[in-house]
């Protein structure tokens, strides 16, 4: 069960809250962080550099299926040098974690919880005359791992490879057969033996 501090719960229930978004990137050289405040924050040993309102997070969807969702992160107002920096960093398919920080009026962090976890997939860099320089990063959800086929089967023989004494799937082959159970009435009746002269002939021949 998700637990939050009582003051965070009270703020959410009242409909008045102050939140900020943090993003953690697990790169080869170590974890890097950004958040949309104007100062730096250290959380769990990672420094989250503040880039203010220049960073926006797209809509985060939640679905009941196993579809891998995406979230778009956009940072604007950047220097053109950023492109050269990003080109020298191995970021593709590295883990990324989007978190939400609940703040109080004094800008103290009350609670931080993860919101979206995935892998950095696409990055679009835009730098054009008359427009701001921006980077848009697409993060693909961890759910994509659920769609990978790994050769496992729902069968007794496959399960025995994990534990030879595990009989959980012992009846899998037979239990998948459909059968009808008639409740409160007779089901289809089998054809019985004929009666009368026809029955006599059937018995003789």
């Amino acid at each position, binding site marked *: 069960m998700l637990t939050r501090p009582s003051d965070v719960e009270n703020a959410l229930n009242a409909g*008045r809250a102050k939140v900020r978004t943090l993003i953690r990137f697990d790169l080869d050289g170590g974890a890097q962080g950004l958040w949309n405040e104007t100062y730096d924050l250290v959380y769990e040993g990672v420094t989250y550099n503040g880039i203010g309102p220049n960073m926006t997070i797209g809509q985060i969807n939640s679905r009941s299926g196993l579809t891998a969702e995406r979230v778009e992160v956009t940072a604007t107002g950047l220097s053109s040098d950023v492109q050269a920096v990003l080109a020298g960093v191995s970021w593709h398919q590295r883990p990324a974690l989007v978190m939400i920080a609940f703040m109080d009026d004094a800008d103290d962090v009350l609670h931080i919880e993860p919101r979206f976890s995935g892998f950095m997939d696409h990055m679009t860099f835009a730098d054009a005359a008359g427009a701001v320089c921006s980077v848009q990063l697409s993060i693909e959800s961890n759910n994509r791992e659920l769609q990978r086929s790994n050769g496992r089967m729902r069968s007794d023989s496959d399960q025995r490879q994990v534990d030879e004494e595990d009989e959980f799937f012992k009846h899998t082959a037979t239990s998948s057969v459909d059968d009808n159970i008639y409740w409160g009435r007779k089901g289809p009746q089998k054809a019985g033996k004929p009666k009368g002269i026809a029955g006599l002939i059937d018995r003789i021949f």
Partner: protein
Amino acid sequence: MAISYPRDLPGCPQRTPFELVRFQSRNLTGGGPTDAIDIAPPLWRGPFRYRTVDRELARALSAWVASMRGGLRSFKGVPPGHRFPVKHPRGFTGWDGVGAIKTIAVGRDSATFDGVQNGMTISPGDYFSVVAGSRQHLHKVLEGGVAASGEITLTFEPGLKPNVVVDAVTRFADPYCEMHIEAEPQEDIDGAVYSLSFTGMQVAI
């Protein structure tokens, strides 16, 4: 002589309102109250307007705008008409208008300042700015006071960020925040009258 940035505003712009732009998500609920979630730190934004028949000033303004290179460089955004507190329209005599933070209240929306001139009167609507990291953060006074014993306690908005510390230098004369020009500035010459207007947006990081 090399020009340093953020650059001072030239001349004296016309009095215009400064607004604190808040980034909030608001939703009117079915029960009536409006939910408001603050999702990013607020930024100052304000229009700056000049109208002059002084040819020398007009040329200096035109050159100043060119030095901004659109939105690439920053200037000191002093709220027009608020260079000094309203009770000290001509500034301070014998004091440069600079003090320091002595103590910060728990909610960080109130603080006591020392090193100020005795008798200095700060009224609601006056501004001051403090050093925050490498930037100047601008604040509007909500509850003022009269300085005594070199100290004054004020309530203001927005609150002080966590990177603003005790002893931070505070400006009561010419308070400013770093700004960049938002969109294209409008210059016009109508007969002998030169006019210039642009909108400044705070640079918070």
